[in-house]
């Protein structure tokens, strides 16, 4: 691990994005626009306040998953990864470089979506905005880390895109957004318990519902952070210096 190399990688990725303003605009605005849409689809602040916290986590999770899996896949298929593997850079320098770059974007993305939800769309927030941001950013990082990891199993961008419904949609269906997790059958309940997004959504719901930071929130934050870290480590294991 070398912080200078991590930061150089972060800078490189952000510079790449700067040359693609359309992507930046979409990254920053899409979750916010979806929140606005959601608010007027329900047409009630009460219902909106009920589902919005979960979606503040789900939208960035989904977008970061896609962005991260495509970017890393591109790094693999254009052989820049192979070139980096011949150079004195550690695999974790590269992955943490990615995590920092996407984390920075996630902060902007989530801050805007949460700010608009709280101050314009009438999201009833009992806890602190800071805590809400923290959970949502961790969520985005989890999506990014999972995207990095699964991109190792995709050979083409078509496959990478298809991993979204495979890895992300089941988590969204089972995270408690549509049906309370306590009402699920034992198998679904168990599945929802091994899926990290469930913990993120539960934390977001608690942060919005109560002003106290209780043990459940902290435990859930820890679970999400550990899952993200584990996915990054697994991602590092899939970056091979030697290939057939």
């Amino acid at each position, binding site marked *: 691990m070398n912080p200078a190399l991590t930061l150089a990688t972060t800078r490189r990725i952000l510079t790449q994005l700067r040359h693609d303003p359309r992507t930046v605009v979409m990254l920053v605005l899409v979750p916010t626009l979806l929140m606005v849409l959601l608010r007027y689809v329900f047409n009630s602040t009460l219902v909106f306040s009920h589902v919005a916290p979960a979606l503040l986590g789900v939208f960035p999770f989904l977008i970061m998953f896609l962005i991260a899996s495509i970017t890393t896949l591109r790094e693999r298929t254009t*052989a820049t990864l*192979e*070139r980096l593997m011949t150079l*004195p850079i550690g695999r974790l320098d590269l992955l943490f470089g990615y995590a920092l770059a996407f984390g920075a974007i996630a902060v902007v993305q989530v801050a805007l979506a949460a700010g608009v939800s709280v101050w314009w769309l009438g999201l009833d927030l009992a806890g602190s905005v800071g805590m809400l941001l923290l959970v949502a950013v961790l969520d985005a990082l989890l999506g990014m880390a999972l995207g990095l990891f699964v991109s190792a199993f995709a050979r083409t961008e078509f496959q990478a895109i298809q991993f979204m419904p495979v890895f992300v949609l089941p988590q969204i269906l089972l995270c408690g957004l549509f049906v309370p997790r306590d009402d699920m059958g034992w198998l679904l309940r168990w599945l929802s318990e091994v899926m990290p997004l469930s913990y993120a959504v539960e934390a977001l719901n608690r942060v919005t519902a109560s002003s106290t930071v209780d043990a459940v929130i902290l435990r859930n934050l820890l679970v999400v952070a550990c899952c993200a870290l584990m996915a990054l480590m697994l991602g590092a294991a899939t970056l091979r210096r*030697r*290939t057939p």
Partner: protein
Amino acid sequence: MTNSALAVTGLRVRRGGRPVVWDVSFEVPRGVVTGLLGPSGCGKTTLMRAIVGVQIVEGGTVTVLGLPAGSPPLRHRIGYATQNPAIYADLTVREALRYFAAVLRAPASDVDRVIAEVGLTDHAGELVGSLSGGQHTRANLAVALLGTPELLVLDEPTVGLDPVLRDELWALFRRLADGGATLLVSSHVMDEAARCDRLLLMREGVLLADDAPLALRERTGAADLEQAFLHLVRAAS
């Protein structure tokens, strides 16, 4: 010989169940330009990948600058340019090189030096993706020149370049070798072979010859290197 830049013994590589490099052995002394020649698909790229340490090999040893290929200390000392440009298309030439220079801990001044060496000074601010094919190849080559690599492994660095540029690059390779660097340059164009100090001729994964260009012509009695290569192919089959 520990003094050689490169020592390959009995190298065997299989890809997709098929042998692509078979029982290849040779040595390359330091400070010379060695041409790796052979038709497309003969195993040149695989051999080069084994030398830079990214190829899974089945058997044999590859010793680079006295260390086993792929050893971490070698990552500072080898410059590698792949045949297909491996450089970020959505960065400008200067931005991409700045990143690779940071990875190599090369001085910042290196970026402008290598841009000038490959003749891209006028295009340094352009996106790599918008360069022409030849410029793209040169940007890719520039990455390999960053730092002061002791060994340069260049896979078809002059393909698609006009004769003037090719001549300039070969002059650059010569200067680098005179400065003490060792170069292994692959090509499938025989007229480039004459500019090398030594030649490795490959065909179907096997090394056909390892000699100086002049000695090769004399040994085969051929008028030029193309004829010499044909002579060796016929003799082998």
